[in-house]
């Protein structure tokens, strides 16, 4: 059934990625506050004098207007919202990683306002040069929750008892932390203190940083069903330089 053409005006949005399309156009993968992830055709955006050229920049808050209701909508306006520091260096690579997570995991046309706000907040923190690990773990946790896989971090999933910081737990992706003896057993086995730190977004301890990184990688890996992230393999290659 044909839907009527919709017009979205001045919607807060970010460009996640863009691809060249035909001679002079771009296809924009955008993440907007109230319409979620959406694909937009930016006609003529690659022309040398296009007014959109300097605006359709990833990691910067924009106001986008578009029409259409199908798979690919038509971008009709893009305004610069500003106020966000530009990402640079390793922070920029982290930005690419966060964008890839959204592109791979968030279904299209589903509004995720809280995640949008968390995304904007994470970019601002990366732009200010805050330690990247804390920013990334916080965003990953938020993303999993928005996808319907909120983590249980303060209670033992079997008994409901509060997490003991000194004990070890195996994190069962379906249920949550289950107490185990000893620390061996891969990325899914972490100390109670790591779970509690992750719950409170505190990443001061080196052990928490290390274990939460492995745990989140394993949990996100499950949601990706074995696909590897491009940004991660490029980063590994860059480390070898």
């Amino acid at each position, binding site marked *: 059934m044909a839907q009527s053409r919709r017009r979205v005006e001045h919607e807060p949005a970010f460009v996640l990625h863009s691809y060249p399309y035909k001679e002079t156009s771009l296809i924009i993968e955008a993440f907007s506050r109230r319409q979620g992830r959406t694909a937009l055709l930016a006609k003529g955006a690659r022309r040398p004098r296009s007014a959109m050229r300097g605006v359709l920049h990833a990691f910067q808050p924009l106001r986008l207007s578009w029409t259409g209701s199908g798979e690919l909508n038509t971008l009709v306006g893009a305004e610069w919202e500003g106020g966000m520091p530009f990402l640079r260096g390793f922070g920029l690579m982290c930005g690419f990683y966060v*964008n890839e997570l959204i592109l791979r995991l968030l279904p299209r046309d589903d509004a995720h306002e809280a995640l949008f706000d968390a995304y904007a907040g994470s970019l601002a923190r990366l732009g200010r040069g805050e330690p990247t690990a804390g920013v990334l773990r916080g965003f990953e946790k938020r993303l999993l929750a928005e996808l319907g896989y909120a983590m249980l971090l303060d209670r033992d999933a079997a008994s409901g008892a509060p997490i003991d910081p000194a004990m070890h737990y195996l994190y069962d992706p379906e249920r949550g932390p289950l107490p185990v003896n000893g620390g061996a057993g891969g990325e899914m086995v972490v100390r109670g203190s790591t779970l509690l730190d992750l719950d409170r977004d505190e990443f001061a301890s080196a052990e928490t940083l290390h274990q939460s990184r492995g745990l989140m990688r394993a949990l996100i890996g499950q949601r990706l069903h074995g696909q590897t992230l491009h940004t991660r393999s490029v980063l590994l290659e860059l480390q070898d330089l």
Partner: protein
Amino acid sequence: MTKEPVPTAQGLERLVEALRVLPGVGPKSAQRMAYQLLQRDRAGADQLAVSLRHALDTVRHCAKCNNFTEGELCSLCESSRRDSTLLCIVETPADLAMVEQTSSYSGMYFVLMGRLSPLDGVGPRDIGLDRLLARATDGEVQEVILATNFTNEGEATAHYIAEMLRSRGIRVSRIARGVPLGGELEYVDAGTLSQALMERRAL
């Protein structure tokens, strides 16, 4: 009643298919091009075939700057009038041509033939950073000028090249950005202007 198939020649079909490797050329345009070549301009088609074959056989990458050339080295790298202590890094041959047009640079070049694009899986191996490293550390080069694009991908590329070279004691600089020459602030886009403000310099 079943329709009879439209008669066609296998050579024509193969040509249409082959033309689709060109960027922005879909089945319709490819068919139009094929008809043009075979029907209206057979001499032009012949020339196209010969030059394509010739280019494929003779054009390769310059051993020093990675740009297209027919010899081992391109004319620019062989020239004795260039300043061999400066190395300017650009993404594409078109970028090199643009820098040359300014007549304000007389050093050498390295053409990456691309940029890092983490979201597309384009990594350092795809843009020959190992060859760049060898070229930049050959003892002649004293300063590397990063002239990659001011896109997020170009910035990431510049950042990693800078890290890689700085750790080996080579001086690295980045071309400046901001309001274009003759640009009136009223008409400059907000992103450019905000960068120009952030990267302002003392007078």
